[in-house]
C-alpha cells in the first residue's frame, strides 16, 4: 500500500511516499527559511508564492526518490490545517488534482496529528538502502541502527507538541482519538525562542541558535520563575512572561542568558508533561513538533523518564520539523478505516486536534 502525502501548512513544501504505514520510501522537504530569515519569521504572502513554485518539483522528486510512478499510488494525503490558509491551499489543490486524476482516495490530515505520528516513523538511517542509493552519509547525525520496534504503536500516551505556532499537551487514546489536556495561553514556545533571539539580535529561527548558544552558558546563572507551574493552571502554558523577563535584564553574559532561559522553558515543559502522565496514570510520554529537536529538551526528558520510570518516545530528528512522512503515517491509519475526504476539502487555519 503506497501513499503520497503533501504538507504545505507553513513555510516548508514537503512530499513523501510511504509504504504500508511504516517504510518511508522518500521524504522531500524544500525549506523557505532563507526567504523568511530577513523578516525574522514567516510572511504569509511570500510563503504561498514559494509553495506554488516548489510544489510540483517536490512531488516529482519524492516519487523519483521512492522509485515510484503516479500509477503506483493507492491514495493521496494532504494537510488541511492548522496553518496559513494561503499555504494550505497550494498543497490541497495539488493533492485534489492528483487524487481526482488518478481516481484514488483523498485523505485530509490535521497537521498536529501528523506531528504525533512522527513518533511512529523509523529513522531514515535505520532503513535498508533503496535501489541505486549508495549511502546515507548526509544523515550521519542520526545514529545508524537496525530497524527496531519503536515500542510498537500502543495506546494511551501523552504527547507534548511544541513548535513555532503550537504548544499543547495531548492525550492520545487510539488512532484518531485525542483529548487536549492543556495549551499555551499566550505565546507558543518556539515563538518565545524566536522573540528572545530577535531581541538579542541573534537571528532567525531562534530555537537552534539559542540551543547552540546555551551549550556554552550556565543554565543556573539566572533564576527565572517557571511560568504557570502552579497546579491551579492545570496543564496550560504561558511563555509571554519569561520573554518579558529576558528583555528586562542587562549586563548578563549572553550564553548564560540563553542557557538559563532554555533551562526554565525545558523544565516547565517537562514538569507539566510528567505531571499529566502521573495524574492520568499513563506510563508513556512522547514529544513532537519542531522544538522537539531541541537537544536539552530531548536529553532532559530522557533522563526524567528513566528516573520516574516512564517510557519516553522521541521522533527521529529528521521528522521533528515539518515534513510529509508524518502526514503519510497519520493518513495510513485513516486509509485503513476508509476515512476519506471529499474533493471539496477546505483549509482550516485554526483546526483543532
Amino acid at each position, binding site marked *: 500500500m503506497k501513499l503520497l502525502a503533501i504538507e504545505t501548512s507553513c513555510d516548508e513544501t514537503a512530499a513523501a511516499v510511504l509504504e504500508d504505514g511504516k517504510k518511508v520510501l522518500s521524504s522531500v522537504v524544500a525549506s523557505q527559511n532563507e526567504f523568511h530569515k530577513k*523578516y*525574522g*519569521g*514567516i*510572511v*504569509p*504572502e511570500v510563503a504561498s508564492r514559494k509553495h506554488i513554485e516548489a510544489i510540483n518539483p517536490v512531488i516529482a522528486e519524492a516519487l523519483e526518490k521512492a522509485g515510484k510512478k503516479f500509477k503506483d499510488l493507492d491514495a493521496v494525503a494532504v494537510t488541511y490545517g492548522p*496553518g*496559513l490558509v494561503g499555504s494550505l491551499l497550494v498543497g490541497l489543490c495539488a493533492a485534489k488534482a492528483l487524487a481526482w486524476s488518478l481516481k484514488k482516495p483523498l485523505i485530509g490530515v490535521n497537521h498536529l496529528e501528523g506531528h504525533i505520528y512522527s513518533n511512529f516513523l523509523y529513522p531514515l538511517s535505520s532503513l535498508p538502502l533503496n535501489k541505486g542509493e549508495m549511502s546515507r552519509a548526509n544523515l550521519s547525525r542520526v545514529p545508524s541502527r537496525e530497524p527496531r520496534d519503536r515500542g510498537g504503536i500502543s495506546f494511551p500516551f501523552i504527547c507534548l507538541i511544541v513548535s*513555532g*505556532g503550537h504548544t499543547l499537551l495531548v492525550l492520545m487514546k487510539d488512532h484518531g482519538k485525542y483529548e487536549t489536556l492543556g*495549551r*499555551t*495561553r*499566550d*505565546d*507558543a514556545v*518556539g*515563538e518565545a525562542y*524566536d*522573540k528572545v533571539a*530577535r*531581541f538579542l539580535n541573534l537571528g532567525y529561527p531562534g530555537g537552534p541558535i539559542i540551543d547552540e548558544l546555551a551549550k556554552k552558558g550556565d543554565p543556573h546563572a539566572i533564576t527565572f520563575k517557571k511560568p504557570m507551574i502552579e497546579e491551579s493552571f492545570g496543564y496550560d502554558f504561558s511563555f*509571554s512572561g519569561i*520573554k*518579558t523577563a529576558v*528583555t*528586562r535584564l542587562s549586563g548578563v553574559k549572553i550564553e548564560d542568558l540563553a542557557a538559563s532561559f532554555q533551562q526554565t522553558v525545558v523544565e516547565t515543559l517537562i514538569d507539566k508533561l510528567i505531571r499529566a502522565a502521573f495524574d492520568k496514570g499513563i506510563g508513556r510520554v512522547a514529544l513532537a513538533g519542531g522544538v522537539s529537536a531541541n537537544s536539552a529538551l530531548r536529553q532532559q526528558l530522557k533522563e526524567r523518564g528513566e528516573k520516574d520510570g516512564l517510557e519516553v518516545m522521541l521522533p527521529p530528528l529528521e521528522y521533528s520539523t515539518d515534513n510529509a512522512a508524518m502526514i503519510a503515517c497519520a493518513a495510513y491509519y485513516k486509509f485503513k478505516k476508509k476515512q476519506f475526504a471529499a474533493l471539496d476539502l477546505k483549509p482550516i*487555519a*485554526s483546526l483543532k486536534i
Partner: protein
Amino acid sequence: MVKETNSARETIKLGKNLGSNLKPGEILALSGQLGAGKTTLIQGIAEGLGVKDYVTSPTFILINEYQGRLPFYHIDLYRLEDPEQIEELGISEYFEKDGIVVIEWAERMGEQLPESAKQIKIEVVDENKRKIWLSWE
C-alpha cells in the same frame, strides 16, 4: 487620557471595559515595547467582546481571528518592518469587515493606518506598573 494599571490583572480589566464598548468597524492601534503588555490588554478587550477562546499571540501567523459578539481580528506586525510587506498582507481588507480590528506594533503601518483608528500607547513604568494612553478619551 492616561490610565495607570498596577498589575496584569488590572490591565486585563481595563481591556475588558474597552472591549465591551466597541462598535462594529472600530480599529485599535496599539504600540508599546516588547513585554509592555499589549497582548495582555488585548486579552481583556477580547473578553469584553465575549470571545470565549484563549487569545494567543499571532506573531507567528500575523493574524488571528476570533468570534465574540462581533468578529475580532488580532494582528501583530512585530516581525514586519517593511511597509511594502504590510501592504501585501492585505490588512486593509479587515477594515471593511464590520468587526473589531486590533493591531499590535501599529506604528509600523505608517500612513497605511486609517485616520479613524483609535490609538493606545502602553508605557512601562516598572515591573508591574503601566501607563496606558487612550487617544480618544
